[in-house]
């Protein structure tokens, strides 16, 4: 029925099967829609956020998907600026994943702020000293860049491409994509960094505070580094999931292996800096605040396990796995290592957001706990539903994987 819209020479499932596939994701979106309506209509009292947990699960999701979506800018940088030709087979997928992550995060932030209609005040009354201002400017601009990078992929749809002007426009955009990739890299560097900076500059919260390098706290650089270490792994995971569901090979191994190897080295580099940073923090910032390292890890569930899990189990282990060719060339080894890498980065964001707020600074302030409401989960899960839906629709109708036809000659439809 819709086969005229499929990319040239590839096979897709029937519309009925596709509709069934989209139903769970549409259900998640409906759940999120209801939650968003309640939060916008009745206010943020629909959540379990509080004056203690001013940031909560939505900010964790935001920072997590923005870090995981870093595959878009980093793969774009490697493809168009550095000139790694093999990555052209995965760059479209990376761009779409990035677009999903960033647009989802921006939509989520629109609900998270108490006065969404005043969101533009950040740009109008901008406080240039605030890391959140830098985040807002760079994320908004980068979302625009991602949209520009996404447009040529849409214009490559078999029917749209028949319109001469649109085809020409798409081809011209392709030619100048290096400029947007470089712009995206610049913007991403600053917003990934400023997201980390947001926590490092909170000098009155010793758990988050980090020493400054020039005008930025070390978390600025650590967040950039960790995002480019985890982003490509998330792109690999999404690609492998698409391959598993569609039962096709979509990306040549050389592209995946290059990204996996690079991730391994970047993660190792990041971990070296993270360990140095943690050691410096534990021996300067923490004692200067009159505290010992273990003072931070004795409240509720936020024990020292967080540090061990983040740096050791979900840091060093996947870094080593990704650096060993035999492990990353093993399909299961690659998936496990990528999953662990992404988990470690999400845990890092969780610790900086939730644990920072949960640990009281005043000696006589009590510890509070937090669990999200169904409305909070609804909006967070809507991001997952939106991601699956947009990626599925893109895969069905757009040439997301340019090598698909070549890699699956027997399945050409």
């Amino acid at each position, binding site marked *: 029925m819709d086969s005229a819209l499929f990319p040239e020479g590839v096979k897709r499932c029937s519309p009925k099967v596709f509709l069934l596939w989209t139903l769970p994701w549409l259900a998640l979106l409906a759940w999120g829609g209801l939650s968003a309506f309640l939060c916008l209509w009745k206010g943020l009292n629909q959540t379990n956020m509080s004056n203690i947990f001013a940031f909560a699960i939505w900010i964790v999701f935001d920072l997590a998907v923005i870090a995981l979506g870093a595959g878009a800018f980093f793969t774009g940088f490697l493809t168009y600026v550095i000139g790694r030709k093999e990555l052209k087979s995965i760059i479209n997928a990376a761009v779409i994943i990035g677009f999903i992550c960033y647009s989802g995060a921006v939509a989520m932030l629109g609900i998270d702020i108490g006065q969404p209609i005043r969101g533009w005040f950040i740009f109008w009354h901008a*406080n240039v000293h605030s890391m959140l201002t830098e985040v807002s400017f760079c994320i908004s601009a980068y979302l625009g860049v991602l949209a520009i990078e996404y447009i040529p992929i849409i214009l490559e749809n078999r029917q749209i491409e028949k319109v001469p002007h649109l085809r020409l426009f798409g081809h011209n955009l392709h030619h100048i994509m290096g400029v947007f990739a470089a712009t995206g890299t610049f913007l991403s560097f600053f917003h990934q960094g400023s997201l980390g900076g947001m926590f490092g500059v909170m000098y009155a919260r010793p758990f988050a505070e980090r020493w400054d390098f020039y005008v930025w706290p070390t978390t600025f650089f650590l967040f950039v580094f960790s995002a480019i270490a985890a982003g490509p792994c998330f792109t690999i995971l999404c690609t492998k999931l698409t391959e598993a569901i569609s039962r096709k090979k979509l990306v040549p191994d050389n592209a995946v292996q290059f990204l996996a190897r690079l991730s391994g080295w970047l993660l190792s580099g990041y971990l070296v800096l993270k360990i140095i940073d943690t050691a410096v923090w534990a021996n300067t910032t923490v004692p200067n605040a009159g505290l010992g390292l273990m003072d931070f890890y004795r409240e509720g569930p936020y024990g020292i396990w967080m540090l061990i899990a983040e740096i050791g189990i979900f840091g060093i282990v996947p870094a080593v796995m990704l650096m060993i060719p035999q492990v990353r060339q093993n399909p299961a080894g690659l998936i496990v290592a990528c999953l662990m890498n992404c988990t470690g980065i999400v845990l890092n964001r969780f610790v900086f957001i939730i644990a920072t707020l949960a640990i009281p600074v005043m000696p006589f302030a009590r510890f509070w706990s937090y669990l999200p409401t169904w409305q909070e989960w609804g909006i967070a899960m809507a991001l997952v539903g939106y991601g699956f839906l947009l990626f599925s629709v893109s895969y069905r109708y757009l040439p997301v994987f340019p090598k698909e036809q070549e890699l699956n000659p027997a399945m050409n439809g």
Partner: protein
Amino acid sequence: MKATEGKYKYGMVINLDKCTGCGTCTVACAAENNLSVIRDETDKQRTISWMQLFKVTNGKPFPDTEVSYFPRPCMHCHNHTPCVSVCPPTATKMDYNNGIVSQIYTRCIGCRYCQAACPYQARYFNWWDGHFPKGTERYLSPEVSVRMRGVVEKCSFCHHRLMRAKEQAYAEDRRELEDGEYITACTEVCPAEAITFGDLNDPDSKVAKLSKHPQAFRLLERIGTEPKVYYISSKDWVRRMADNYHPNEFQPV
């Protein structure tokens, strides 16, 4: 971003030896500043109390148990005010001329970054629309705007009282305020006279003299926020409660 010293620097000294924890300061503050109530005031993570009382004990069993209270307004931090520097739409500012950290409710977007940055838990978000039980709306002060849902609010050192005092002085052809002419609502009502308010830059003011008392201290002094709220206590264990110390580091006065 070290604050440029202005002519005035309003601050407060709270004598914890005098404080009985009666809560009058909290009630007066709420009435003076049109603080809204929420339907379930037992939800202590989301209630609004610009002047909050923290009860502390020395941890010893009866009969050696001692109790003290920390009334905690906004500290109006003077150095690199944690909330001011992070607020993206510049909705909170410190007036360098008087040291008061103010909140612009109509500019606040409700991102709550300021709450995350404040170590004193002195900032409150309006999780609900303002609620004033029937009849209480008639007691609202016309000098203080009520806040809308979705914005952050905090103690303003009763800034409207400063405006009022300045207008009075102007009407009387004076350019300077007398010590004690501008005081906050909590200062005025405290039955034990535990709170003293005034200009810390005026060496002759009562508050400036008390802030130099040997037993005066501030909350979390070592992180460097330079609060303009001082406390006095003759009890070592109370002074030790005000900050984090390594073993054997605390020096009794």
